[in-house]
């Protein structure tokens, strides 16, 4: 009775209400942004989808003069460059994680882990600049001629390495992507490796297994899903990387078999062409539709990686 009169109860209701509702707003915001992101991109890209239909994805034309736009070439560029990135990053990050977790004494590996993670902190535009001024000349002078000499006479494979050695192109973009995602994949691999029960490792060692055998036959099977999840997560990041790729891929709207020819990715195409398209034009709508395509691809990839990673955490 006394409490009621003193206004204590009113107080007690309002603040918790405010707190809970703002807490719910914070949660809902994340949800709404995500839905809004998907919806808006499709809504703005609707014009392009309705004009070109399914052709938008299958065709490789991009000709602003004739109002012909399609995602094909950029889609191929995105998938190929990110796949090259993953293929190169996989052994690199596996080696790093193996070395840091199993081979090095902990007091060293702590610092080297931190150093390698610093590489992940470097903004992508700076890696792009480094790639443009350092990596591209290296590629055109040494790596590309070497690859051409090596595979120049092998049927079919030579197609991949044909063309001029300009240094730019899908291969260089893949290399930059590999550098960018290796620290991520390494971090996830290290975490999953250290989740392996020590008892399993010790019993394998006591049977006389070498370090590599413990790694290969005990740890890897135990953490398989986590590693795959980490790799797929890295792939998801590589798909949408913009700035680093824009610098080194050459930006030409055409698809070819050669990894040395300039090409483009969805993200770099949007970044470059956006400022040159008017609001409401078919080109702008096509760029938004490209964004929607990229959103769908990266959503599927990230969804799968999260599922895989979740299963690992659950099994812990």
């Amino acid at each position, binding site marked *: 009775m006394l409490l009621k009169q003193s206004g204590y109860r009113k107080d007690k209701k309002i603040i918790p209400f405010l*707190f809970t509702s703002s807490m719910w707003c914070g949660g809902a915001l994340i949800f709404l942004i*995500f839905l809004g992101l998907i919806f*808006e991109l499709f809504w703005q890209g609707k014009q392009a989808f309705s004009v070109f239909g399914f052709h938008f994805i299958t065709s490789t034309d991009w000709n602003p003069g004739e109002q012909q736009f399609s995602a094909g070439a950029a889609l191929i560029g995105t998938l190929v460059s990110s796949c090259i990135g993953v293929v190169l990053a996989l052994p*690199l*990050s596996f080696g*790093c994680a193996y*070395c840091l977790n199993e081979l090095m004494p902990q007091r060293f590996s702590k610092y080297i882990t931190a150093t390698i993670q610093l590489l992940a902190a470097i*903004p992508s535009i700076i890696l792009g600049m480094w790639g443009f001024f350092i990596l591209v000349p290296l590629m055109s002078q040494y790596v590309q001629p070497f690859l051409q000499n090596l595979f120049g006479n092998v049927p079919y494979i030579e197609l991949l390495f044909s063309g001029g050695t300009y240094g730019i192109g899908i291969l260089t973009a893949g290399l930059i992507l590999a550098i960018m995602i290796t620290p991520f994949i390494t971090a996830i691999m290290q975490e999953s490796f250290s989740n392996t029960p020590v008892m399993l490792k010790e019993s394998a060692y006591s049977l006389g297994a070498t370090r590599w055998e413990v790694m290969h036959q005990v740890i890897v099977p135990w953490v398989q899903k986590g590693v795959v999840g980490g790799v797929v997560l890295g792939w*998801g990041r590589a798909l949408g990387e913009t700035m680093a790729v824009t610098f080194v891929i050459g930006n030409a709207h055409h698809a070819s078999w050669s990894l040395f020819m300039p090409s483009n990715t969805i993200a770099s195409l949007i970044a470059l062409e956006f400022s040159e398209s008017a609001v409401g034009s078919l080109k702008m709508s096509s760029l938004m539709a490209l*964004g929607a395509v990229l959103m769908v691809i990266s959503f599927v990839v990230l969804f799968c990686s999260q599922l895989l990673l979740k299963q690992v955490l659950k099994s812990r």
Partner: protein
Amino acid sequence: MAQDVKKLQGRKNNLITWRFIKNRLMTVFAFGTILVMLCILISVLITLFVNGLSGLSFFTLTHMTAPQGLPGGLLNPILGSIIQVGIAIIIVVPTGILGGIFLAECSNKKLSTIIRFIADIMMSVPSILIGLFVYILLVMTMGYSALAGSVALALLALPVIARTTEESLNMVPSAIHEAGFALGAPKWKVILFICLPAAKGGIITGILLSISRMAGETAPLLFTSLGNSDWSWNILKPMASLPLTIYQYADSADDTWIKLAWTAALLITLFVLCLNLIARIYVDRHRKKD
């Protein structure tokens, strides 16, 4: 008989040597990969210092960008970056922490699992798409502005801060939690005045890391704050920023502009690396205290 034993023993020895050789090879390979990564990092840093250090002078830091041919500095991009990242922090820190509290404390487990899943996906969504989203949302109605750029940066950092807040809230020992309840404190008081201060370390680390990420983001700013070669104070107008200046200058044919781009790159990298080091040292110190 004796020959067979010898043969078997030979095979056994061969197997053992092969196993050890394989082990050695993989060890060399693993150290090799570490070496490759370190070489790349060192190469990036050396390139930045060699090309950028000469431009890092008092003049560059106190003069604005100038048209091609005239001596120019980086004052307005530096200020622009600071302003935009600052506004983004003001937007994202409260919302991110609220989102994190929601994830950690929401009683509806199904809902919080879904939102956690979405936040995890949002963390890796291409930043250029966030830029497009903010373009549709804000720029189409208000025009290019620094504020839109800040919103884009904030959207990028939101899931990161929410997830780190949640994780550090979950790390708070439940005994502390329960002690608060046992004293008769309502839930909001326990969370705000007991759990959040206890989880401070992790939250601050998350904020520092997302600041360092925001400082280097370029793609979302392309469509939102557009860049500005002139003096820019108004947050409702286009504003310059360091990453956009790098993007614009690095592609040009002018040597002085390229040099300025390197200097800008050096500035951002130093800032980002310092923040990362601070965050790491901070985490280490907190761990030791526990």
